[in-house]
């Protein structure tokens, strides 16, 4: 078995399984903590608040946008770029089709891939540079923030190197980092990809009962 066969085969299955089980374990562990029922008479709906809270925080408030524009651009650029690459990059679609044996959606053209990757890289670099250049972020950041940023960066970088799919070594390098990233993910702050809806929802529900959407 070659290294490429390992990282795309057993390595990927093991890391994917760890990712799925540990992420579910972590989410279930949070949810099972439960909470006491709120018996104060409600002025509005907690359920509507949960949904509204989740949607509202996708959009920055105008009052703060001018101060936090760099974060907004970096954050949106990186996240949208990453998701576009993950879902629409031709090699990803081909890999998933082979894995699941079903036909998926059309891939983005090569020029779109390059632009998207540049936007995602720029966003990630802006966020990471702020992490050590901004006094607030420097104080509150820990090793997990830096490792998460670096691993994601390396996954993206090696993904671009492997774009031609002409060198097995480069493709193996990319898949190797993907496997490591998948294992690291559920134990790290990268889990915010899933926990954000609980957090926004909790606040939204609490405020929704009071008839507000923060």
């Amino acid at each position: 078995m070659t290294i490429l066969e390992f990282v795309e085969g057993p390595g990927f299955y093991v890391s994917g399984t760890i990712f799925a089980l540990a992420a579910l374990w972590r989410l279930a562990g949070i949810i099972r903590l439960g909470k006491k029922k709120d018996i104060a008479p409600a002025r509005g709906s907690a359920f509507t608040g949960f949904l509204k809270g989740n949607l509202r925080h996708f959009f920055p408030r105008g009052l703060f946008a001018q101060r936090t524009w760099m974060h907004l651009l970096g954050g949106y650029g990186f996240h949208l770029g990453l998701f576009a690459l993950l879902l629409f990059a031709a090699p990803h679609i081909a890999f998933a089709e082979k894995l699941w044996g079903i036909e998926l959606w059309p891939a983005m053209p090569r020029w779109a891939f390059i632009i998207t990757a540049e936007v995602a890289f720029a966003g990630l670099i802006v966020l990471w540079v702020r992490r050590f250049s901004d006094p607030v972020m420097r104080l509150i950041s820990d090793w997990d923030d830096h490792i998460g940023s670096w691993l994601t960066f390396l996954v993206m970088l090696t993904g671009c190197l492997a774009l031609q799919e002409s060198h097995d070594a480069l493709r193996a390098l990319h898949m190797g980092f993907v496997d490591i990233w998948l294992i690291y993910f559920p134990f790290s702050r990268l889990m915010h990809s899933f926990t954000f809806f609980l957090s926004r929802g909790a606040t939204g529900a609490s405020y929704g009962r009071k008839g507000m959407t923060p």
Partner: protein
Amino acid sequence: MTEVSQTAVDILLKQTDVDIASYLEACVHCGECAEACHFYQASKDPKHTPTYKLQPLVKAYKRHKAPLRGVLSILGLTPPEVTEDELREWEPLVYDSCTMCGRCTLVCPMGIDIAGTIRKMREGYAAAGIVPEGLNVARANVERTSSPMGVTAKALLAQIKHQEKDTGLEIPVDVAGVDYLAIFSSHEIMASPEIIGAYARIMKRAGLTWTVSTEAYEATNVGVQIGSGPLAKQLVERVVNEAERLGVKYVIAPECGHAYGAIRWAGPNLVGRPFKFEVLHIVELLDKLRREGKIPPGTKDGRKMTLHDPCQLIRRGGVLKEPRRLLSDSATNFVEMKGAGIANLCCGGGGGVSANERAEELRLKAFEQKLKQIDDIGGVEAVVIPCANCRGVFEDGIDEYEADFEVISLSQLVADTMKDA
């Protein structure tokens, strides 16, 4: 671990339910919350970043309660135990530099309720006895008189007598079977007792039956400010028991932001059962009476006025439109501040900060942000504030910065401008 840190950590962990855990898990350390915090904006000290104030709780959670901590512990990746020194080091961040105003939640991409989490953290601190001296004094006063300023029933009755003389109206005391029980904050009773007279005029005009109680006159809940659930419960129970003994249909929460939240939103949960009466904020009641035509507007106040939104009433209380409707009816020149409403800046003295002398310098510095909001409007002659605590903080700030505007109560304004019968 010392006994103090063990007690604090035990309570911190007990307070960590699914909501708090979600907040601690979702924070991505982006630091956006600093941009919304008046204390950070005033000091520019990164330590005043709201999420940083949660560190002891984050550490305790990761070490003792977070899912997958077992695996991380084997790898040596869980944080060390929270120490007493660390808890004490964080105490000024938890009590002096957070008014639990909740503005940081607005800017947080994860929607984290840092204010609510600080409230839970204070439970651990209060249980361990790590509390600022000013709040301990307030607590001692409450245990002696039920009032954080030590206002006794005798002092209340003296103020009521003065108001009866000033208004020519009888102010009912300890009367059973009426519809409304009015409770006040110490600040109102001692610093602006004319509000009691204003209530009397409004109730008379609206034809409502009401009473003040010598058993339950104090609305301020120091337990909520310190973070002591048992004390908060005791203070809410005092009002609940008296309201139910008198058989009132409504308890009117006064112009005091956190007092409203303490009885309206936290109250039933603290007591552990629904009340046999409804809680209305005085502003909600006035708005209801106005819309029912029971207190029609009369001659409006012509001064240029703006409205300060008390955080616990507006952002965290849900009473957003009512004060605006009342003010529009009562003033000819009402102008909103930039960011008015849900995003308005805190005065800097909520959440017990105004009772904490150690925090005075930082509080006054934070008030400059508020002052700027008002100055930006230009030519404001009066700021209407439906919170007695905020009014006190404003009065301190006006003295400190020699500002030239008046602060007035919304209820007082409504009483002064309503049409005579």
